[in-house]
């Protein structure tokens, strides 16, 4: 996000050691990421153990696996393009509303007699168009992504309500709802999980193994430097928002299938969970760092956490507190660790960057 990239207030990742050379900081960053993923994996394993201990008969069953993965399915799907967007330094708050708009339009078209296949294509195209709208305003127009997507968050949701009103469309064909609610034959793996896995693998490969991915990281670390070295930052950002919009629309289709019902208020409140999932996955809100595997781990962790708590009859409010705490702790611990080590390091080096100074290169010019 361009705004926090200039915010010196919270160190988050990186502000404590501004003077490391590029090469060494690269390694340090990789090491930092591996530590984060490891930590998450440990937490996940711990929670699996907790689940097995508190609800021994039910936790490790195929049915539970299906439920566990189903609960956060659409959130996890939308978290993947969100990861890329946050790494590049922006944010897309409108995903939940595009999901709702997609569900509403799909239901509307289906109720009007349009075949479902055509409806799905239309809706995906609409998602791309919405993403394009966001992308143009943000990348071409130079407007802050936080505010633009806040506006489209409201706008898309409003359009969904206008299109479908308060009603719900149901009675979808069985093949459609089987896809949503059913599992791959012989396994407890829900079909949508397959979609999620495919998207995760593709985006993971793109981000971590291709030059596109390197460009995304570069643009996130330093927009101007990236531009000067030939990265078409604007074009890339537009493409990322189009991707986010399309996948949000896809998530809307999946949600509609899963619930066998199209509603204009579908997905309400999901954006916060998506952002939580991405941040929990070790992606820095300032951009420039993060991994897809980390976000996948975070998705699993949140899903398991919710499941374990529900099975133990922990009330929803305690769950919400737990997630909030988890989010904060996940950022505080690395930040504290860095501050401690930088204090020790600078006490040795006798040099301390002043509080509140943005990292060089992070103060971007308009």
């Amino acid at each position: 996000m361009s705004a926090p990239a200039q915010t010196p207030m919270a160190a988050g990742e990186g502000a404590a050691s501004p003077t490391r050379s590029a090469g060494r900081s690269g390694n340090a960053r990789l090491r930092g990421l591996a530590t984060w993923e490891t930590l998450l994996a440990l937490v996940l394993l711990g929670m699996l153990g907790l689940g097995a201990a508190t609800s021994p008969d039910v936790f490790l069953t195929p049915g539970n696996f299906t439920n566990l993965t189903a609960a956060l399915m659409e959130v996890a799907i939308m978290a993947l393009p969100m990861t890329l967007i946050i790494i590049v330094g922006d944010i897309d708050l409108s995903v939940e509303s595009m999901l709702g708009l997609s569900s509403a339009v799909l239901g509307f078209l289906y109720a009007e007699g349009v075949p479902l296949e055509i409806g799905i294509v239309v809706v995906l195209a609409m998602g791309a168009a919405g993403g394009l709208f966001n992308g143009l305003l943000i990348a071409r127009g130079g407007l802050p992504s936080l505010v633009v997507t806040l506006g489209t968050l409201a706008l898309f949701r409003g359009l969904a309500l206008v299109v479908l009103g308060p009603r719900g469309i149901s009675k979808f064909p069985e093949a459609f709802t089987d896809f949503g609610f059913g599992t791959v034959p012989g396994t407890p793996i829900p079909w949508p999980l397959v979609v999620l896995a495919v998207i995760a693998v593709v985006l993971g490969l793109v981000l971590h193994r291709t030059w596109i991915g390197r460009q995304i990281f570069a643009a996130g670390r330093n927009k101007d430097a990236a531009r000067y070295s030939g990265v078409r930052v604007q074009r890339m950002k537009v493409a990322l928002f189009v991707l986010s919009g399309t996948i949000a629309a896809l998530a809307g289709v999946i949600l509609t299938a899963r619930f066998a019902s199209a509603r204009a208020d579908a997905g309400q409140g999901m954006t916060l969970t998506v952002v939580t999932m991405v941040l929990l996955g070790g992606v820095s809100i300032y951009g420039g760092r993060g991994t897809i595997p980390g976000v996948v781990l975070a998705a699993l962790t949140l899903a398991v956490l919710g499941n374990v708590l529900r099975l133990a009859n922990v009330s929803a409010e305690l769950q919400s507190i737990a997630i909030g705490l988890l989010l904060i702790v996940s950022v505080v611990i690395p930040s504290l660790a860095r501050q401690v080590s930088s204090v020790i390091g600078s006490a040795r080096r006798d040099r301390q960057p002043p509080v509140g100074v943005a990292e060089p290169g992070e103060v971007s010019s308009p």
Partner: protein
Amino acid sequence: MNVHRPGRLLALVGAAAIVVGACGSAATPSPATPAPATPAPATEAPATTPPESPAAAALNIVFIPKAVNNPYFDAAAAGGKKAADELGGTFTQIGPNNAVAAEQIPFIQDATTKGYSSIVVSADGADEVAPALKDAMSKGSKVVGYDSSPAAGAYNVFVNQTDFSLIGSSMAQWACDLAPGCTGEIAILSATATATNQNAWIADMTKALADPKFANLKLVETVYGNDDPQESTNQAQGLLQKYPDLKVIVAPTTVGILAAAQVVKQQGQTGKVFVTGLGLPNDMKPFVADGTAPAFGLWSVPDLGYLAYNVAALLEAGTITGAPGETFTVKGLNNDQPYTIGPDSVVILGPPYKFDKTNIDQFNF
């Protein structure tokens, strides 16, 4: 990129652990595809349930209301708990913070996983919750709907608080009684626009209003307060602004009627604009006393919960299967007369109560 490996390996291990654990343990794979959602004749579960899920102890019953922040459902829970104590079973209530189907479904699924013997549910969305409920039934749980019905075929029995049409015609009558000379503008303040029960009541009220004796009552608008006190307040205020000649606000929602009564009183419109609909006696006592809402209705909400629990118990015992035409008796309800299960496996608690000055102090919920 070597440094990624430790983390990635652990991630794969974690994911694999879940999958292996899931596949490796427990008996029969669950049939995941639900039956088609067409209204089917009532007979669903067999009389005795083969326990497919682990430890399906009898009378281990869970209530899943539309949302847990609602005094109406707490009142029903009180009735359910009383039944549990009498029958020697257990009572648990879980549910989402918001009356949203998407939030309710994970609770249903987890209840299924935990193998409760019966699930008593008030559906946030009739069709949305159907697959999860059918899944529960296929795994041996009984499903009893209460207050707001899941789609037909997704429950064994639905305990309806009262006949929809009775509510609709009652509300029309109360509006007529309150509007001077049964003449004038009236408006409806509803809850959420998608709630099955709301829409049914409103539809029936509109039908009732077509009767010639209500010819001088004009229904000007239906607005939605979403069962949210603030939104209901805003909408009620809006009604007063838009229709200065409004005579009656009909709010078939306990949240809405309270908000409307408060607004009318605070605007000093008591006696000029009347409020009626469905409300909780404890909420409405002051407004009955001062004439803002001289008459309104409901049913015994604790009895609703009590009946639902008993129906679940009867289903578990095999005394009934939910087929239309079956009868059963629950002591303390319906004057100890038998209930008859109607079409679509619906049981009706009883006629709505009308609360007014003469009787409201007798009730405490």
